[in-house]
C-alpha cells in the first residue's frame, strides 16, 4: 500500500462510516434524539447558512478569537521579554504565570462574565488569557536559551546591544512565537467558544448552548462540525504563514 494514497483510503473509510450511520438511522436502529442521521445534520447546516442567521454568530466568534489572539500575543511577548531581561519582573510574574499555566484557564470564564458582562469583552478576555500565558512562557524560556554562539558571533563582528536585539533576539522571539502559532490559534477559538457557551447572545458557542437547551442534537452536531472546519481552515492558514516565515528552518 502506497502511503501517498492514504488520504483516499481515509476518505473511503469515512464514506463507509457515514453510509452505515445513515442506513442504521433510516432503519430505526438509532434514537434520533441522541444520534441524528448525517443527512439531518447536513440539513441543519444548510438551514444555518440558507437562512443567513449563521453569519452574525461566525462574526462574533471570529472577532472575539482574533482580538484575543492578537492581544494575547502582544502581551505575552512584552511580559516575556520584560521577565527575561528584568529579574524583579521575573520574580513577581513567574509564580502568577505558573499558577495560571497549571489551572485549566477556561474555569475563569464565569468570573470574566461577572466582571465584563455577557458581551464580547468577556470572550476576548478568555481567549486573551489562554494565549497570553502560552506565549509568555514561550518567549520567557526562549530568550534565556538564545544561542550563546550567535551572540558571540555578533559581538565579534562588531555589533553592539541594538545589533544583538535586532539580529539575534527579535528573530529568535519571532521564531518561537510562530512555532506556537497553531496552538495559540486553537487556544483563542477555545476561549471564544467556551466564553460564549457560558453566557452570550451571539457566537458559535452560544448557538451550541442554545441547541443543547432545546435538545436539538442535529443542530449541535452541525455546529461542532462547523467549528472543526473553521479551526482547520485557520490552522492551515497559520501553517502556511509559519512555513513561509520560518522557511530558513
Amino acid at each position: 500500500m502506497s502511503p501517498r494514497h492514504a488520504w483516499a483510503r481515509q476518505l473511503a473509510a469515512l464514506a463507509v462510516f457515514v453510509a452505515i450511520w445513515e442506513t442504521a438511522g433510516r432503519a430505526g436502529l438509532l434514537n434520533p434524539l441522541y444520534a441524528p442521521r448525517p443527512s439531518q445534520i447536513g440539513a441543519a447546516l444548510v438551514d444555518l447558512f440558507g437562512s443567513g442567521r449563521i453569519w452574525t454568530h461566525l462574526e462574533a466568534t471570529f472577532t472575539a478569537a482574533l482580538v484575543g489572539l492578537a492581544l494575547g500575543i502582544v502581551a505575552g511577548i512584552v511580559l516575556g521579554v520584560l521577565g527575561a531581561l528584568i529579574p524583579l519582573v521575573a520574580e513577581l510574574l513567574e509564580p502568577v504565570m505558573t499558577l495560571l499555566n497549571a489551572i485549566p484557564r477556561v474555569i475563569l470564564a464565569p468570573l470574566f462574565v461577572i466582571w465584563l458582562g455577557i458581551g464580547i469583552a468577556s470572550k476576548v478576555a478568555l481567549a486573551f488569557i489562554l494565549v497570553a500565558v502560552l506565549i509568555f512562557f514561550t518567549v520567557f524560556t526562549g530568550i534565556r536559551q538564545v544561542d550563546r554562539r550567535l551572540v558571540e558571533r555578533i559581538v565579534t563582528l562588531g555589533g553592539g546591544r541594538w545589533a544583538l536585539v535586532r539580529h539575534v533576539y527579535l528573530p529568535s522571539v519571532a521564531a518561537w512565537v510562530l512555532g506556537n502559532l497553531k496552538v495559540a490559534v486553537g487556544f483563542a477559538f477555545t476561549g471564544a467558544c467556551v466564553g460564549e457557551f457560558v453566557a452570550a447572545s451571539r457566537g458559535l458557542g452560544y448557538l451550541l448552548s442554545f441547541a443543547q437547551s432545546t435538545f436539538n442534537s442535529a443542530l449541535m452536531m452541525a455546529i461542532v462540525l462547523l467549528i472543526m472546519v473553521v479551526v482547520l481552515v485557520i490552522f492551515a492558514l497559520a501553517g502556511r504563514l509559519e512555513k513561509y516565515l520560518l522557511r530558513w528552518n
Partner: protein
Amino acid sequence: MLEGATLAVGDGQFVSLVGPSGSGKSSLLRAVIGLQQPLKGTVEREVAPSDVAILFQDDALLPWKTARDNVALGLILNGVPRGEALAQADLWLERLGLAGFGHRFPRHLSGGQRKRVALAQVLAREPKLLLMDEPFASLDAIVRARIVQDVAALVDRERISVLLVTHDLEEAISLSDHIYLLSQGPRARVTRDYPTPLPRPRDPVRARMHAAFAPLYEKIWNDLSREVDRRP
C-alpha cells in the same frame, strides 16, 4: 587554566598554538578578541579591535539569514551601506567558491559550505589579524584539506596575520611560520616554540611532502606527548 603565555604574531605571520586539552588555548584567543578578560597580564594589539576577526569551530551563522545576508552582516555592523555590503558579500562568496549559493539559508548548505560562508563573513571585513579556534575540526578529511588550501591562499594574498589554535599537528606545521606549544594544564604555559623551515607562500597539502616536514612533526609530537603524559 593558562598561566604564562608570551607569544607574538608578526605582521603577515601565520602562527599556530598547539597543546593538550584544557591548557587554555581557546581562552587565550577569547582574550585577544576581548570576549573575556585575562585574569592577569595584558594583550597588546597593534591593530584596532575592528581589524581583528575570529573563526570558531562551529560556524554560528544566523539561521534566519541567507548566506549573502550573513556575509553582508559583518560589514553592515561596521557601517558599510547595505547595497555595498551585499556586493562585497557576493564577491567574497565567489572567492570562496560559493557563487550561486548566496540565496541559500545555512540549513540548506553542507558543513563545508557553511564553513566557507563563515570564512567569507570574517574575511569580507578585511581583518589584519585572523584568529581561528579549531576552525576545521568538524569537517571530513577532503573537504577540510580543500578549505585549508583556500584559507592559506587567501591569507597570503590579503597579507593577513593569523593565530590558529588546533589539535592537529599536521595542520599546524603545513600552514604556519611559527608554532607555540602549551604545556599541560592547570597552570599551563608556553613551553616551546618552533619556527617552521618551510617557505611561504605554500600549498598546505604539498607542504606535507616537504623534506623538513617529517622531522619537525616528530619533534613536536614527542614534546607534545611528554606534556600529555604529565597529566596529574
